């Protein structure tokens, strides 16, 4: 893991997620980027920008990710974070509640050729749903 790759991750968090400035995304994320988390998969950089970054910032305009811990090795970096945000727009079908949430999670990012090619993440979804005051309808297994 080079310093450049660390900087790329920090830039994505600080600029794109925390400020909504997508100008630098293409420089650090590969066009065939794959974003996944349990039950969700988004393919391609453009879809990622629109559905994930812009989607999150529309639901949570004051979205803020703070990096709590990092582990980097080779072309991979794992990040432990705390997300704080206020629910002002529709999120996963949930109308805005105006509630503030603080949710923690872990993401693992893979690089190739200096750009992010894959990100897998898991967060405390259930805790978030509870903080929003809703629990989504559960399917029958």
């Amino acid at each position, binding site marked *: 893991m080079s310093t450049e790759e660390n900087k790329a991750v920090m830039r994505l968090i600080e600029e794109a997620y925390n400020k909504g400035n997508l100008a630098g995304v293409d420089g650090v994320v590969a066009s065939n980027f794959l974003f996944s988390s349990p*039950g969700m998969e988004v393919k391609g950089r453009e879809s990622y920008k629109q559905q994930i970054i812009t989607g999150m910032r529309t639901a949570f305009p004051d979205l803020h990710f703070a990096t709590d811990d990092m*582990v980097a090795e080779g072309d991979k*970096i794992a990040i432990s974070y705390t997300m704080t945000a206020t629910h002002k727009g529709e999120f996963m079908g949930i109308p805005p509640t105006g509630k503030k949430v603080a949710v923690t*999670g872990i993401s693992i990012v893979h690089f190739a050729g200096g750009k992010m090619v894959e990100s897998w993440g*898991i967060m405390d979804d259930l805790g978030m749903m*509870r903080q929003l005051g809703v629990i989504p309808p*559960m399917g029958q297994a």
Partner: protein
Amino acid sequence: MSAEENKAIIRRWFDMINKHDLSLIDEVISDDYRLGEFGMELKGHEALKQAFTTGFVGFPDLNYRIDDIIAQGNKVAVRYTRTGTHSGEYHGFAPKNKWTEVTGAFFYRLAGGKIVEALGYSDRLALFQQLGVAPPMGQA
């Protein structure tokens, strides 16, 4: 301990779990071990053993597969897939012989060749859906 040695310790711990034999837990887990998971905290060997024993009873074929492992200095991050058939009592949920497959991740901190701290996440929503139960409602 190097990052590679710490990775080997984590792999050894997963092997113990997968063999459902924690008799040598002292060799990989520190006495003052702390696990944080979704705001809950578990401390020490006995609490950890008890948590896993509950898992082994509920899921007699409980298995963790390491999907990704990343180490730097005294830290190791793991992405895993946990599988098991719910054929025993588990946290009050009646066994229905449901196959479960859940992903998750751990951040570990090691010292002197033992795990001292872990931060864990797993896809609880998927587990509840697979068990065929509604998630317990709690206070945020």
